[in-house]
């Protein structure tokens, strides 16, 4: 089983590095559970995150499902469920 949290954090960091505050990036880098809205990501950033996760894990995600995940922990759990169901 791949380290899903690592993959999700990496995808978020890649999309957020030029748009999010230092504090939000620090939270992300530390892997603590926090509100993803703090990253200030727009819909195109979310698409970038989805593409990264889909490619690394070879799964299919929908935008609305990903957008519904409010925290890092929720997103990791959601992606883990998707990997498990494949």
């Amino acid at each position: 089983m791949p380290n899903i949290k690592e993959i999700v954090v990496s995808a978020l960091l890649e999309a957020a590095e030029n748009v999010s505050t230092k504090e939000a990036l620090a939270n992300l880098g530390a892997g603590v559970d926090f509100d993803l809205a703090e990253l200030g990501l727009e819909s195109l950033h979310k698409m970038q995150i989805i593409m990264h996760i889909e490619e690394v894990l070879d799964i299919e995600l929908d935008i609305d499902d990903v957008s519904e995940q409010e925290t890092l922990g929720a997103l990791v759990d959601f992606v883990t469920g998707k990997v498990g169901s494949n």
Partner: protein
Amino acid sequence: MSDAVNVYDLGDIAMILGTANCAPVSCSDGHRIIGNHLDLDVSEILAVAQHIPLCLRGDAHLAARRRIAEIISASSTQTRAVVEREITAMIADLLTPGHHDVMQEFVTPLVNKLIGETVGVPLHLSEDTLVSRLFSHTIGISKRKRMNTELRELRQAISAELPHLNDIEVGDRLALCILGSDAMRGTLARSLHTIFESGSSAPDDPALTETYSKTGVPFIDREALESVEIEGQERKAGTILRSRLEAFEHSDDPKVRNRFFGFGIHTCLGRTLALQVWRQIQKGLDEKNVAVSVTAFALRKDDTFHIPETFELEVHLA
């Protein structure tokens, strides 16, 4: 499109779809923006969108609609023959005692045959085909890539089967596959479901049998080009008005229910064929008249179509 205004009033829906002051909404802008941002090949999606009337405006809309209507009209004798030849036998197979997957055994093969006959190419679209997901705003990147590939393969298959066609004619046939597949499968399957839920293949309830009772196309979007009053409220120019066609499902009057096929110049071009199909299905269901129970039914997660992902049936001798 999450800020679209839902419209349920039947009169307002008729007005929105009947006036030139409310225009179709592009189905390709989102794909284009995402494709550019992520350097994604969405060329097939963008190309075929230029052939889909309900995504085009003005003269382009009228021209595409006229071309597609001509294709449907030119194939009407053949499609009618398919309806008369195939449906009774397919219904008889579906209603033999035992367990049945309605989508796999009946709905998808029938729709493939009908659209295939219309476009002049044998179609083998699978249960999970993505061709009609072109209208979706929520599918992710993998599905967009898969859709683009599926559309390319379908376009190549049409070109190979009908080499005399030019690019526009091929694109129109591809558009027909997109327009017909999930809309027809959803409408047919959901309406069959309401019948089979009664416990019989031939319930004594004209509200279920006279025409389709459910639609696979729950809404259609239009952009208000001028300020317009909807359900007593003024909506400014630029507002996306989401006409909930599913509102017509609640009528007991078959004529009213059939309005979920649209109005005027926005009437579904497949309406006549769809109604022929339903009449033939009813004949088949009446002839068999067996006891049925729906053992599994679930709609696919989909932001544009209402179409079953699972629809299973147990047929018993009455």
